[in-house]
């Protein structure tokens, strides 16, 4: 079955071609076609997964054709199937298929229906290339491909100026990240002479710490751009302009995790560059805390989820930073399930409120009391919230707790503290969202109230499936922590922290012990209890402020208005970028353009002094100039041509005088030489 791996990207290509070229006459059937294509890919992935999990495993490369050959550089378009890529394939194709089905219902009636599904399939194709590629170049093809699709899908409703701006912003910020990624690739090629994973990782151990860190940091710049970490996260909240299935698939489950996958894939190099790892850990923790804090006060339902995604990605990078690559991927998988569920849930809420005025459809202040109107959405949404908050036995707990445990045991205490505070905030804002939308009295616009109804089956079925996955998705692969099925399955394709390294003695023992046997030691029990306490505490605080005493939030915000507006305004990061990066480039751009037209062209076109003089001079003698001097030197020459012209006075004796003058000058030149 593995040899058929090339089939996976082929199905989306067929979908793109059908919907792309025959969009008009396919019309409403475009959705089902695209979903079938995604489904077929999912089946192939399942086949391969079964063969990998229950079969021999290991890593197989499926070569297709040699792509670029230039002297010593030779790169071929071929796929790599190994545990890491199988997990990623499962997540991508699984969640992708569910989102396709969900989108059939959600996008019903939209004029650009076939166009939407063409680009959705194109996204699946790029994501498959990114995950399947056996060398960095093919990964980069997928990398930019998903960047392009996110641009297209965010700007799907292109009449809205804000949507096309958001799309453009997303692409350019990604492009900045890609620039770093490219430089990382070049460094890898110059150091190891190849871009294929197997050869690169074979040569990784000889790399010096400085070189490995340089590669790591450069690649991490790419990851920051793609997975929306500080400072390049600004595009993700604006990306909510796109339709909700897009947000669910691209900006929650798959694309944003590409950075995490890339860092995990390059783990052998990262392992050799410890300070790159510590940078990743700190950035991850910072982003987690930072984004979670903004999420506390947001009123737009999708913005809250967007900041929650940024925060959870921070967690994943925290895991990778401390060396727990498997934990990072595990959290990636569980996050895909419950964040996908939350986004789709919010989608069905927005879908239900589409009769409300435009700006109220996503604003939680105009929701509330939807619990009994939309039972399935409510219950699945609740499961998702509990999972993300990290309450056992649901998925969030196992993956997030493991990350915090690893952070703790490997001595990154500051990172651990930030993570725990972020976890508390996560629990708080998730249940704030639940209570504001589903509980309390109905604040929905009155004439939109009777239209609220449960979403159709095509939308609710994926919600239920994802809810189930959110429940079992954590326990089955993740129990017992550190030694669950997923860790053993991923072990061969992820590098191990070296024995020395920066981890404390006790931490390493535990780590190796965990990889080997079960978890032991009183510290672990303490950690588990703390995590549960944090989660439940967050939920309780949210319950108290938004159900029991609804005035509490207003009082709190009035008591410290500075902080409230700071958080509401998203730390004014966007405004800072606008003033200190975007505006100066506009000014520079305008300046260079005038510089080009006036000076460079001017020097060529006629410096002002000369033209003024020659025009006044020629004005006197009513000269008719050809329209527009040819160039600066030209107008300089034209000035002299006027001079020469008017020396011909027509008087013979003048000519004779000039002739004699010439003889005299020649004579004097010789006599006085």
């Amino acid at each position: 079955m593995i040899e058929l791996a090339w089939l996976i990207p082929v199905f989306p290509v067929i979908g793109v071609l059908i919907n792309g070229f025959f969009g008009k006459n396919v019309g409403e059937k475009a959705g089902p076609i695209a979903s079938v294509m995604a489904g077929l890919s999912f089946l192939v992935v399942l086949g391969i997964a079964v063969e990998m999990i229950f079969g021999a495993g290991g890593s197989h490369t499926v070569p297709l054709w040699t792509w670029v050959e230039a002297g010593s550089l030779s790169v071929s378009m071929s796929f790599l199937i190994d545990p890491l890529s199988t997990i990623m394939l499962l997540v991508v194709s699984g969640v992708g298929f569910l989102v396709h089905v969900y989108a059939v219902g959600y996008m019903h009636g939209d004029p650009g229906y076939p166009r939407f599904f063409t680009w959705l399939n194109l996204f699946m194709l790029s994501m498959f290339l990114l995950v399947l590629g056996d060398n960095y170049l093919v990964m980069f093809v997928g990398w930019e491909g998903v960047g392009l699709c996110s641009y297209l899908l965010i700007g799907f409703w292109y009449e809205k100026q804000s949507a096309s701006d958001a799309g453009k912003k997303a692409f350019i910020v990604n492009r900045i990240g890609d620039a770093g990624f490219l430089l990382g690739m070049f460094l890898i090629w110059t150091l190891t002479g190849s871009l294929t994973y197997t050869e690169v990782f074979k040569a990784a151990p000889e790399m010096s710490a400085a070189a490995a860190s340089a590669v790591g940091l450069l690649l991490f710049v790419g990851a920051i751009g793609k997975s929306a970490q500080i400072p390049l996260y600004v595009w993700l909240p604006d990306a909510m302009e796109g339709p909700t299935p897009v947000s669910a698939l691209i900006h929650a489950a798959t694309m944003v995790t590409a950075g995490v996958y890339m860092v995990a894939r390059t783990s052998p190099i990262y392992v050799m560059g410890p300070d790159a790892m510590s940078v990743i850990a700190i950035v991850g923790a910072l982003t987690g805390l930072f984004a979670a804090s903004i999420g506390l006060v947001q009123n737009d339902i999708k913005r809250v989820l967007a900041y929650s995604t940024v925060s959870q990605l921070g967690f994943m990078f925290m895991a990778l930073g401390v060396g727990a690559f498997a934990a990072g991927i595990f959290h990636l998988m569980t996050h895909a399930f419950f964040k996908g569920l939350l986004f789709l849930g919010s989608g069905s809420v927005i879908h239900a409120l589409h009769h409300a005025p435009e700006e109220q459809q996503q604003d939680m202040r105009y929701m509330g009391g939807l619990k009994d109107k939309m039972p399935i959405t409510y219950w699945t949404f609740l499961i998702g919230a509990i999972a993300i908050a990290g309450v056992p036995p649901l998925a969030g707990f196992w993956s997030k707790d493991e990350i915090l445990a690893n952070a703790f045991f490997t001595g990154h205490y500051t990172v651990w503290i930030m993570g725990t505070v972020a976890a508390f905030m996560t629990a708080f804002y998730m249940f704030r969202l639940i209570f504001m939308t589903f509980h309390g009295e109905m604040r929905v616009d009155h004439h939109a109230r009777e239209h609220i109804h449960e979403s159709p089956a095509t939308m609710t079925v994926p919600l239920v499936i994802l809810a189930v996955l959110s429940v079992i998705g954590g326990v089955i692969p993740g129990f017992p922590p550190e030694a669950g099925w997923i860790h053993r399955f991923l072990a061969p394709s992820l590098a191990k922290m070296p024995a020395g390294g920066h981890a404390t003695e006790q931490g390493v023992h535990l780590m190796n012990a965990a990889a080997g046997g079960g978890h032991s030691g009183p510290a672990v029990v303490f950690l588990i209890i703390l995590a549960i306490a944090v989660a439940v505490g967050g939920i309780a605080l949210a319950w108290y402020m938004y159900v029991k005493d609804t005035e509490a939030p207003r009082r709190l915000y009035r008591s410290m208005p500075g902080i409230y507006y700071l958080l509401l305004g998203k730390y004014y990061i966007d405004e800072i970028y606008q003033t200190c990066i975007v505006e100066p480039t506009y000014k520079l751009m305008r300046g260079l353009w005038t510089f080009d037209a006036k000076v460079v062209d001017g020097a060529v076109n006629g410096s002002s002094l000369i033209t003024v003089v020659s025009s006044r001079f020629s004005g006197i003698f009513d000269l008719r100039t050809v329209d527009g001097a040819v160039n600066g030197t030209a107008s300089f020459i034209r000035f002299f041509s006027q001079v020469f012209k008017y020396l011909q006075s027509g008087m013979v004796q003048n000519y004779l005088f000039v002739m004699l003058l010439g003889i005299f000058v020649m004579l004097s030149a010789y006599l006085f030489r």
Partner: protein
Amino acid sequence: MSNMPLLTLITFLPAVGAVIIMLFMKKEQTKAIKGFATAVVVLDFLISLPLWFRFDQSEAGFQFVEKVSWIPTIGVSYFVGIDGISVLLVLLTTLTMIIGVVCSFTAIEEREKEYYVCLLLLATGMLGTFIALDIFLFYVFFEITLVPMYFLIGVWGGPRKLYAAIKFFLYTLFGSVLMLLGILAYYFANLKMGTGTLTFDLVELYAVGPKIPLSLQIWIFLAFFIGFAIKVPMFPFHTWLPDAHVEAPTAGSVILAGILLKMGTYGFVRFALPLLPQASQVFVPFMVLLSIIGIIYGALVAMAQTDIKKLVAYSSVSHLGFVMLGVFALNEQGVLGGQLQMINHGISTGALFLLVGVVYERRHTRLISDYGGLSKIVPVYTVLFAITMLSSIGLPGLNGFVGEFLILIGAFKKSYVYAAFAVIGIVLGAAYMLWLFQRVFFGTLDNPENEKLTDCNAREVLYLLPLVILMFWIGLYPKPFLGRMEASVKKVVKMVNVAEAPQKAALGKMTKLEK
């Protein structure tokens, strides 16, 4: 080698066609003229196909060689041939010619006869430049192309055509005149230090390169540099390009961007690098600095444009900055990337100009502000424009990326600082192109005239399709293209990276400069 003089046939067929039109066709028979011109150009493309199929990829030297002595007294011979570097350029020229002719059917209404005569003569000039292996012959063709282009811009151009035409003509002429000085200096240096015979034959002169003392090489390199840099155009010499592009008719700017700019870069790779190896090595930092400025400066100024054609013109400055960066990385990946990027730029910028021409023919305005929200009413046009735009900003999977990737990896190998700055060009490239795309295609359809816009008709799609197919082909499977260029590029790179030049040979005479 085929006994049939293939290259001469390909080069002079358009000229013969032009003469036939001039002599036997009256001004009124426009339909016959157009038909005949298309037939000539298509036939030209067909007979150039054997170059592609019968090209021996392992052979680094020149193929399809024809040599006939022309002016024996000064050692000039009609010596033509192609190798990896010029085979794709010749094919690109014949293809662009078809597109140029077909796309000007509706664009040009008055004086068609002279128009097609100029177009065909231009084709001969360009083809001649790429196949000439005798420096004199190269210079003759290099200058001949100026005259038809001068007429194309001057007679059928836009409002400020006279200014743009004379500026283009004089600017390039000034450059090539100084290049002539360089050629003559090399010609006599070869007499004194090289083979001792008076000859313009490139193959013989290739061997002389390293023997020339460095100081003379530097002077000659400066002369070559000015001649080719104006043509490329590189940073300080680029001001003629926007005027020439904006004022030229559609076919004119397609050919100008697609082929004429390549003569500059081709000149560097064919003449400057192998003939003046040590000087090229000495000039690398200077040239790379100029190219990087070109990349960033071109992109930034492009962003400030309000006229689409001027924007594309400045984007050409940026793209060709990349090509020059690749060429002066002086390693295999860099030069190969530069060569491929020449072809890619010809395809993507040519297509961009065609697309601007399509809209210009309907709305007769090139200001971005006059457009908006087009994607709703002209979907096919939008898709074509999107693909071309993505190819030009170098999206992986399309042709732009392969070229840019090789250039950057070559530059990185030379020194990571070069690549670091050049990478900024990629980001800026995405910025101005997307901003253009957004202002023209997205947003609301408020301008009433835009509603009346009709989508691309069959003819327009016909001449855009081959370019799009090429974009995907080179993007996904560049092996046949890279394979053909590799052997010759390796040879050039080996020639450039030769050891130190003799410092002190017969320099006495150099001092008496002013005499």
